[in-house]
């Protein structure tokens, strides 16, 4: 999917579908494992938003960098992060991608340009801006994508970083995943105006797209990534989607019976989720395509099962690392 063609072929779309499905099945498994009490920490799931990470990262190279959010499993996987190592991390095992020291909210693989999921809402703005400044100086053709949500758009650092990115023509793509909720608050109760307008005010090229249509995401990202790579400066994509799961799993414990949205709303969005949408497109390809979809489902389920087994069977994290990993070559 190197972005050499101007449009996606049926087989390209099939590959994007498989990537989205891997994220979906992984997240569903984590939902169930969390419910069963098998995970030590909280998980924030990406179900319903898979098209955005997938469509964007399909345009990236291994050396490109991303910053992510507390809802970061999808970004990690779409950028090429190892599934086994991610699940081992979430299970707090020594084989985890961060050796069990970071957990779900901090999955990172610096060797693949994944500068980390992040527990601080909006933290990615400045990290991505700094990374993009570094990339610009290095002149090695790397670019940076900053994934963030509508909730973090109300952090002042977004405006600070839009300013710097525009001023310095940084190779940076801002991708706002507007999933309609800022933790437990509907976006319309906490966010004024159109988020993309904030970027327009700095003269940054902006697109507002349907984030549940992976083709639309891929296309918008392709333009933005090419702009960044060719020295054209930053871009801003606001992708509309819907968070099917709660802010975090088992949120009912916090809500104590209160509701901040209606079940019918969730169901209507579920029906037009990105995977459902793409599957319908692909099924139109006839019996061969349908058979391929069945194969993909099997393959993805096997991968998830294997990864969970790997995580569960791995040895626990080494507590001594809390001391040896604080500094590089120095005790705390």
């Amino acid at each position, binding site marked *: 999917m190197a972005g050499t063609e101007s449009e996606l072929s049926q087989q390209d779309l099939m590959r994007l579908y498989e990537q989205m499905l891997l994220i979906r099945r992984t997240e569903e498994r984590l939902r169930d494992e969390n419910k069963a009490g098998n995970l030590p920490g909280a998980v924030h799931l990406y179900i319903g938003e898979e098209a955005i990470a997938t469509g964007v990262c399909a345009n990236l190279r291994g050396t490109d960098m991303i910053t992510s959010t507390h809802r970061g499993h999808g970004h990690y996987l779409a950028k090429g992060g190892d599934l086994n190592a991610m699940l081992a991390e979430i299970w707090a095992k020594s084989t985890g991608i961060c050796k069990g020291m970071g957990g779900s909210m901090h999955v990172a693989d*610096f060797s693949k340009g994944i500068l980390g999921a992040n527990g601080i809402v909006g933290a990615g*703005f400045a990290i991505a801006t700094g990374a993009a400044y570094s990339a610009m100086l290095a002149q090695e053709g790397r670019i940076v994508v900053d994934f963030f949500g509508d909730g973090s758009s109300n952090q002042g*650092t977004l405006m600070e970083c839009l300013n*710097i990115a525009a001023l310095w023509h940084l190779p940076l793509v801002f991708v706002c995943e507007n999933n309609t909720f800022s933790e437990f608050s509907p976006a319309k109760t906490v966010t004024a105006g159109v988020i993309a307008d904030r970027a327009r005010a700095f003269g940054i090229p902006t697109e507002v797209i349907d984030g549940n249509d992976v083709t639309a995401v891929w296309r918008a990202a392709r333009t933005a990534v090419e702009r960044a790579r060719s020295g054209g400066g930053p871009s801003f994509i606001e992708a509309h989607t819907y968070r099917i799961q709660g802010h975090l799993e088992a949120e009912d414990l916090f809500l104590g019976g209160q509701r901040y949205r209606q079940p019918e709303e969730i169901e209507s969005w579920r029906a037009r989720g990105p995977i459902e949408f793409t599957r319908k497109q692909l099924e139109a390809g006839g019996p061969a395509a349908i058979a391929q979809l069945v194969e993909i489902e099997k393959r993805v389920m096997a991968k998830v099962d294997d990864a969970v087994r790997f995580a569960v069977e791995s040895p626990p994290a080494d507590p001594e690392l809390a001391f040896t990993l604080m500094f590089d070559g120095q005790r*705390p």
Partner: protein
Amino acid sequence: MAKKRYIQAINEALFEEMERDPKVILFGEDVELAIMGDCRGLTERFGRNRIRNTPICEQSLTGMAVGAAAAGHRVILHLMFSNFVYTGMDAIGNQMAKMRLMSGGQARLPITVIASYGGGGSNAAQHSDTAYPPLLNLGGINVLTPATPADAKGLLKSAIRGSNPSFFMEAGGRGGEQGEVPEGEHLVPFGKANIARPGKDVTIVAIGSMLKPALQAAKDLAASGVDAEVLDPRTLVPFDEAAVLASVKKTGHLVVCDEARERCSAASEIAAMVADRGFGLLKAPVKRVTVPNVCIPYAPNAEARVIPNAESIARTVRGLTGRAAAA
């Protein structure tokens, strides 16, 4: 050795390290014009890619330092005044100090943050703080407090070459002070205290800006028969506990001087450390000489009232050792 000013020693360290490694970059507010003096000439030599003025947005600058370091550069962030540690604190506390552990040791963050601290210039409360105490509590941040031109140069060079986030705390208002600086390659290791004046009756631990008044106090005390040892820890993280304990073993008395406010100051931490690990060595309670728990006021006379000086240090020592002043 040649005599050089503190600010000049810092400038030399920046020049040498930027010459040495093209991956070293420096950014901050008004660094191109070298408003604080320490960056003088850097833009002309290294250009506006490696030396870069930023907008006024410390919250983002500290996060950008993390991002640029994670992406492969050696970052020097100039924060001007140490009060701006507070405005930039989120990414310092939540990213810079934690990313290495959170990433399982993947992140390597060669970041040096320069910030000038301390009062004495009628800069009022928001530009006079000694803001390292919150940094000491973060865990993953080195804190350097050079008191002399030689240590300023040697510690800054070590910080820039190092691979961990380090705060280089410039003693504000001390920039014009002169001292001997070794020629050629001069690196000062972290966690190695320096005995600035040997003595046998009392240990005065003097942090950064407090070294000069502490040495003056020691001189005054000598005239009245008190032989004070003045120890400069040079770095607060890592901290040379062994050197302080060895000195206290010799003197049995400890006074810690710190320009931070008393509550949760570095002085408090050092006092607690000695109470914990050196209680049997002490012949008297540990005393702290710090700014009281107030903000630094504007009026010069009010400022002088709250910032420790040679007289208040000597007075504390005399109270501790029980030897009255000759006069």
